[in-house]
């Protein structure tokens, strides 16, 4: 159905092509006319000549006869003329004139001044004239001198013979000859024409017909020419040609089918629209699925926006684009193509929005507005998935935010809630199977009700619903009046036992929700699980307590010390919050890995630790960590890592910070030290802490003043800790209790 159309075999042929400005003269006609003209001409010439000769011969024979008669007459006239016997002349003349053939005669003596007889209208021959014959149209004059035996001329005579009968004969015979000649000519031309038709015109016409049939699309045409002449050769060549065309068409058709299959499998609708926005070709099956059936001739806009109102901006924009795009010159095409809508969201057929991705190609036609080829993909499923994922992420972020607030407000409250909730669920579970007194049931219900309220206040709506359902279950089982307000779950409260599976499932679900909430809480808490185990105390009280046990070294002092300490995770909170911003500011990407979040950091150190760690982290960011590009070049992941760790050691804690950047650039440090006039021998770790030393090129907010590290060391020492660089390669700094170091019991490596 959506196949690219093949040329169909046609039985109707187009009218023959006529060369402009000239009449169509068939070869047959030309041959016929030419043959006839030539034959006629030749025949006419031959006949004319033949007739002339025939006439001449008729006259010649008459002449011979006439001369003989005239000579006899002349001979007979010798005596009378010689003896001047006019009567004799007349008598002779009368004898001759008796013949009907003789029209007249004249006899002259010598000199020939007057005719002795006859001579009317006859010219007297001149004396010097010899014997001759004068041939005229109607008569023949024979002139003879009358000569005596001794040769002396005694007269002359002219006898006029009629050519009437010859002429008549000639005229009769002329028609016969003409008729015969015409008949012959007709026969000959007929034969020639028939021959020409059979040998030339017929086969030619056959070839012409065959050629036109091939032109009209029929590929099976062959001519049968048996003669082994040029026309036969032409015929054979024609057959070979049509066979070749046939073969090529077949291969083209096969290739087209293959292409069609490829296009169908691409899963894109491929349509071609003409300059007026109508679909002129459909080139893949997917097109029907996306745009509906019967596409050719439809306006694409109608199919893409079947329900859009005329004012719909997307529809208007597309119509505008479709009307302009076919007309743009080549140099503007790229810009215009970029303005084509890349994605359309349509109201779908079943209420679900459909997303279509659009890609456009131009099909330029020289001298005309182009057609457009559009490739349309249905990406509804993909977008839906993206939305689901985004929603889930948003949901998770929201829950996390809720939890963070909880943590800030008081993790202990949440911890208490969790314990409480689990206890109540367990109660509800037990209540299923046992026979409780009315009072016990009432207590259970009150507890569940409270739990529901608490869950809702902590933002755990799902848990609230489960508890509500549990309440309803208990009520149903005990056929008690339903608790107000009405059930959100919409179940009808029929008295009677609840299926045990359903009940159990609710309890299990409640437990799962509590576990999830707990996990989320821990995730949100900067100090992790510890947040659940803290209780808030007043700083003033703690400080007072610390003062009271100062100097003591017993269990109480130890406990107070722990009371005054803060988990390491707390010190890291401000770092985690600020780090992304600092990193972006210097064009780097970094992530923080913290271990030992719940290790308690002694109070005094805990107060200054955030600031110091901040210094050290910022230093690492500026000096040690490379830009994403540099890291990629070295094969490191683009996002750098800064590792903070805290472990308990005798006398306090050991905090370390290191990163996976380039580390401390010893050369630069020594150079800088030298330029400051400081002795640059000695471990680079010590040089770093020299006041005024900084290898940063400019002082920005993060680093560069050269004060930071020396200030850090001073702060540290004030609270009894020492900070050193233990590994330049990873820029690993370590804070350790000073006492510890001095006692030489430091288990960590240098």
């Amino acid at each position, binding site marked *: 159905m959506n196949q690219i159309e093949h040329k169909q075999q046609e039985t109707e042929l187009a009218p023959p092509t006529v060369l402009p400005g000239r009449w169509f003269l068939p070869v047959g006609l030309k041959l016929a006319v030419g043959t006839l003209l030539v034959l006629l001409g030749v025949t006419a010439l031959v006949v004319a000549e033949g007739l002339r000769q025939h006439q001449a011969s008729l006259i010649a024979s008459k002449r011979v006869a006439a001369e003989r008669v005239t000579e006899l007459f002349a001979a007979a006239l010798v005596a009378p003329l010689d003896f001047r016997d006019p009567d004799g002349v007349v008598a002779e003349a009368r004898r001759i004139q008796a013949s009907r053939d003789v029209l007249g005669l004249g006899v002259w003596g010598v000199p020939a001044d007057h005719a002795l007889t006859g001579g009317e209208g006859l010219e007297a021959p001149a004396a010097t004239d010899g014997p001759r014959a004068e041939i005229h149209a109607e008569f023949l004059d024979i002139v003879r001198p009358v000569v005596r035996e001794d040769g002396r001329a005694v007269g002359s005579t002219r006898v006029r013979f009629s050519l009437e009968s010859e002429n008549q004969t000639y005229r009769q015979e002329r028609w016969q000859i003409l008729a015969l000649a015409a008949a012959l000519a007709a026969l000959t031309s007929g034969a020639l024409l028939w021959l020409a038709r059979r040998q030339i015109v017929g086969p030619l016409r056959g070839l012409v017909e065959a050629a036109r049939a091939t032109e009209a699309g029929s590929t099976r045409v062959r001519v049968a020419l048996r003669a082994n002449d040029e026309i036969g050769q032409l015929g054979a060549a024609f057959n070979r040609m049509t066979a070749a065309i046939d073969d090529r068409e077949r291969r083209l058709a096969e290739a087209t089918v293959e292409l069609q299959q490829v296009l169908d499998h691409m899963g894109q609708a491929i349509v071609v629209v003409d300059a007026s926005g109508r679909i002129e070709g459909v080139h893949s099956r997917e097109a029907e699925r996306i745009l509906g059936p019967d596409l050719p001739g439809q306006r694409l806009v109608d199919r893409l926006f079947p329900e859009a*109102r*005329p*004012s*719909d*901006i*997307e529809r*208007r*924009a597309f119509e*505008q*684009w479709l009307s*302009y795009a076919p*007309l*743009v*010159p080549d140099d*503007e095409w790229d*810009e*215009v193509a970029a*303005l084509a*809508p890349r994605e359309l969201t349509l109201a779908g057929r079943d209420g679900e929005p459909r997303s279509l991705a659009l890609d456009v190609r131009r099909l330029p036609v020289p001298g005309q507005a182009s057609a457009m080829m559009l490739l349309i993909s249905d990406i509804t499923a993909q977008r839906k998935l993206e939305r689901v994922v985004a929603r889930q992420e948003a949901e998770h972020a929201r829950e996390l935010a809720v939890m963070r607030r909880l943590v800030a407000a008081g993790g202990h409250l949440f911890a208490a809630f969790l314990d409480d909730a689990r206890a109540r669920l367990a109660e509800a579970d037990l209540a299923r199977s046992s026979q409780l007194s009315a009072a016990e049931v009432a207590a259970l219900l009150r507890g569940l009700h409270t739990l529901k309220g608490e869950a809702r206040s902590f933002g755990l709506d799902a848990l609230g619903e489960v508890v509500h359902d549990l309440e309803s279950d208990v009520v149903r089982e005990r056929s008690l009046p339903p608790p107000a307000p009405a059930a959100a779950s919409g179940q009808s409260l029929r008295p009677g036992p609840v299926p045990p599976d359903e009940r159990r499932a609710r309890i299990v679900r409640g437990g799962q929700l509590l576990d999830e909430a707990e996990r989320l809480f821990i995730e949100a808490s900067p100090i992790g699980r510890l947040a659940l185990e803290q209780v808030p105390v007043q700083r003033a009280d703690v400080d007072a307590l610390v003062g009271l046990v100062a100097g003591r070294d017993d269990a109480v002092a130890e406990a107070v010390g722990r009371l005054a300490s803060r988990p390491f995770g707390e010190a890291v909170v401000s770092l985690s919050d600020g780090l992304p911003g600092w990193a972006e500011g210097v064009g780097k990407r970094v992530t923080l890995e913290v271990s030992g979040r719940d290790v308690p950091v002694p109070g005094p150190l805990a107060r200054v630790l955030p600031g110091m760690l901040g210094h050290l982290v910022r230093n690492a960011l500026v000096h040690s960590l490379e830009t994403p590009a540099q890291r990629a070049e070295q094969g490191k992941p683009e996002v750098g890592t800064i590792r903070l760790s805290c472990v308990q050691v005798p006398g306090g804690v050991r905090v370390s910070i290191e990163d996976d950047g380039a580390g401390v650039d010893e050369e630069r440090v020594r150079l800088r030290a030298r330029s400051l006039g400081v002795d640059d021998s000695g471990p680079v770790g010590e040089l770093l802490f020299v006041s005024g030393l900084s290898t940063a090129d400019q002082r920005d907010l993060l680093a560069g003043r050269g004060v930071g590290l020396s200030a850090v060391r001073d702060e540290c020492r004030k609270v009894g800790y020492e900070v050193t660089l233990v590994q330049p390669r990873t820029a690993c700094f370590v804070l350790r209790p000073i006492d510890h170091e001095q006692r030489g019991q430091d288990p960590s490596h240098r």
Partner: protein
Amino acid sequence: MSSAGKILLIDDSEAILARAREALVGAGYEVVTTTQTVGNGRHLASCDLVILDFHMPGMDGGQVLQGLRQAAGANRRCWYYLLTSDEAIADDYARLGFDGSLRHKGNQEQLVSQVATVFRMRRLAQMADRRVTR
């Protein structure tokens, strides 16, 4: 820093203006918001798109739009679009004197996508005009 275009938003609710402004600025447009339909000459002089909430007083009469166009003065490039949730009114934009209408009022995502479409249309119209005068 060049923006994707300058937009003037006119609505009588500050809350709506704030949300819409946030969404559009986030998409890279330069946005001016006001609850007044008059006194905007300064902004109109360099504006690309004016989006007018339909439910402002005086909209039906067309005077508001006239006033705006007058105030825009020499700036003929500015397009005036209607914002409404009512489909019938949206279809009527031409009679009311607007260049077009935007729907899904209240949905910021749709607003941004529709505005992007309007600017695409503007660009195409500019190119078409250039060709005509060439």
